[in-house]
């Protein structure tokens, strides 16, 4: 069973529209949602979570259609939004109490142990915490009710590299249980590269690529050659190219490249940039 199934999801705003997004997140996998600012990542996540209402299409969580009557589904979904939405006058203890009576599987011990691990002051009011600390509290909440699916919108934004690394490890631990899945959106592609099994590229409301990370990395490569040599490659197989006086550097489909060329592996970030530029 897929953790998330989206089919032909559409949402129209005055100056932006999400255009027939379809993707599937198998159980036990991690999918990274990559896109530039304003691409539609947060909109997609908000549609999945039913924060905003879709215009058309289908969204299923654990095989069940997301709707107003499917509140119980969210018991198994841990959420981190780009802006943590806890009341500013609350402290961690108040949040614990509220969540205890909200989620049926709330684990108070786990929550406080995560806060300790993240070095968050339990008594400090939420508004007095830094952005990074607020995000840590939000992550702690998402991880403390035995969720089977985590939906994370820029969860590592504002966090220092050390704690980012730690959180990525926590997410990785989370997916050791084969029934647990994660959908994570982020600008920090390096985090996603470490973590994700699947990568989805969104650009201007359209899903450009959605595939297994390893397959993507295998499918594309970087070549360096002369301008003359680049002409020997089928132009459709070239995702992007950079010309300089010293030669050309291009991202191309590996199948289109002969043995004569110097092939280097491509990173997700490079691939992402080349795909976007290609669209432009």
């Amino acid at each position, binding site marked *: 069973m897929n953790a998330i199934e989206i089919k032909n999801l559409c949402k129209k705003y005055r100056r932006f529209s999400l255009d027939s997004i379809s993707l599937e997140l198998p159980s036990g996998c991690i999918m990274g949602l990559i896109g530039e600012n304003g691409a539609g990542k947060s909109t997609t996540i*908000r549609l999945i*979570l*039913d*924060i905003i*209402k*879709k*215009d058309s299409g289908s969204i299923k969580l654990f095989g069940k259609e997301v*709707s*107003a*009557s499917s*509140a*119980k*589904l*969210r*018991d198994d*979904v841990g*959420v981190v*939004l780009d*802006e*943590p*939405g*806890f*009341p*500013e*006058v*609350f402290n961690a203890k*108040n949040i614990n*109490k*509220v*969540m*205890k*009576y*909200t*989620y*049926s599987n709330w684990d108070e011990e786990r929550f406080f142990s995560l806060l300790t691990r993240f070095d968050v002051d339990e008594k400090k009011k*939420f508004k007095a915490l830094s952005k990074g600390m607020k995000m840590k509290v939000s992550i702690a909440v998402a991880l403390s009710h035995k969720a089977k699916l985590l939906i994370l919108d820029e969860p590592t934004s504002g966090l220092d590299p050390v704690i980012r690394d730690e959180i990525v490890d926590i997410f990785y631990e989370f997916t050791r249980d084969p029934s647990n899945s994660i959908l994570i959106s982020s600008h920090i592609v390096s985090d996603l590269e470490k973590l994700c099994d699947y990568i989805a590229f969104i650009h201007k409301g359209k899903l450009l690529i959605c595939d297994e990370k390893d397959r993507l990395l295998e499918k594309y490569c970087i070549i360096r050659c002369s301008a003359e040599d680049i002409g020997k490659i089928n132009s459709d197989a070239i995702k992007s190219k950079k010309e300089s006086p010293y030669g050309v550097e291009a991202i191309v489909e590996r199948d289109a490249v002969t043995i004569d060329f110097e092939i280097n592996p491509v990173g997700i970030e490079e691939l992402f940039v080349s795909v976007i530029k290609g669209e432009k």
Partner: protein
Amino acid sequence: MKGLLLKEFYQWLKTRAVFTAVYVILFIFSMFTSEDRVFTLPVYLFGVVFGLALSSFMLDEKSGWNEYSRTLPCSPFQRVTAKYIFFVPELMLVCFAEIASAIIPQKLSEDFYIQPGLYSEALVYFAAWMICISITLPLCIFIKGNKKYALACIPLLLTFVVSTSAASKLRYSVMPEWLGEILTEKTWLYPVVILISVGILVVSWLTSVAIEAGKDKAYRNKYSIRAAVAGIATLAVFATSIFNFYSSGCLPDPTFGEVSRATVEKIKAEANPYYDFMCSESNMGKTHEECVAVLKSIGYSNQSESNRGFLSDSEKIIVSLTVDKETNLIKHVSFSSKINTKLIKGGVDSDFEEIAENFTAGMTEKELHAKIKELELIPSTISEKISKGKLQRTYYFKFATDNFTGASLSSDIRSVSVKVINNVIDKVEITHYKDGSSSVLSDFDTVLAPEEMRIILDNFCSENHLEKTTEDNKNELEALGFMNLRSASGSINANVVHDEETGLTDYIYISGKVGEPIIKNATKEELEALCDNFPDDMSEEDLILKFHELGVVPHEILESRNYEKKHKRNYEITYLLENYDGGDDKYYEINIDVIEGKVFDVRTYIEDSAD
């Protein structure tokens, strides 16, 4: 939903609890310590509490809770219901403050007694605030940004204005009589109004759930249907109540202004036998028992508690019988219909002149009665006595012009009096009620209704009321037509003051429009000669007879005890001197002190700035 309620509670605790506690303490403090017990300020402070409660919606929007809460395992129903469960009681604090300020000071007052409007005030506040909250909450839940405040202020301010002005109409006994009847007789009204108010809140709640469901058609339709059903049920209760009021005649009769149609018909039906049996022959010289027997036979069998009047079945007509102490025979009969507290309304002077033209000098009293029935009039009073050896019955009909706004002493009130002597109409007059500062109209200006003061002289000034309780004295005045201690025309007030030590009445003060003199131009010499008619040691009974003979009407009567603890009644009579020009000066006062039933002292006072 527990989690959502807990969230609201914590937010309240951390942002509003202290303010709310301060206002509650301030309110309780002012309730018991304020001398004049004016509670307006604390009540409006609770409006601040209302506003603070609404601010929590802004906090939720600002913090992002509104969005985040949608990711929690809570349905739209739970999200909306949690808001309603928490905020309705908090927002109703304003309502509870208004109710408490209406009821508690009156309960603490020495003169407290249950008025029909007292608890209905609470009902008005309850209904008004429930409707306000039903509108405000959805605005605050669904409208984003600061606009929600601007919009929420509108129902808040409207409710303050509408509820306090509607409630004040009930509190100060200026409510229409038809409404007073509904409040006292239709006790089912109270739970029905509560039901309708709660129904409106339920419709608001279910509609909010439907809106919160957004584009989820099935969920939205489910709650839309429920809201519609609740709305229809509420409307049905409301429509049934109105239909019940209409079919039972509770609603006002337009011709009779603020009196219900049922009351008007009832009074007409009860007055007819009075004309036929009590006005067909002289009652003067009959015994009390004979008159009572006739009254009982025509349905006037309810005796008022003070034994001074006989009430019709509807208790809207009082007939009082005054007995001559020496002969033990009837010397005065007074009929007073409660309809005279709210006048027959509508018309211009020519209409009333037209009515008066139906009663011509020389017409028999029987023909007069037939005409009254034909025109469907109801006399406000019928007074019967012997005057100059002849049987005199005077019928008074009160009317109000189209401009009448409800003030008792309005210049838009007219009175048609039909004087019948020996069963034949002698004179028909139309009089205007004018406000006090206007010019002389006739012998007596109608600022002070002389007939009403004469009823007091004849029926109230013959005994010691300081040996009775406040309640008894009030009942006795009521039997004489003083509803809520005010005369039928509204121009005479009675103040019955309680003595805490003895539990009886301390003093009674009856006065006409205070400060307004009886207008009768006279010279100083004429007025000094008038005083010669009230010699020392004259009995009080003779004094009153002398008042009648001379056409004198005191405008103040004070019954109290003198420094020797003896019973005393002071009569104050005021006249204008010839050079009166409308100001406070240039008037002549005669003060007559009666100690233990005998004239003790007559004092005069002339105010004349020219002297």
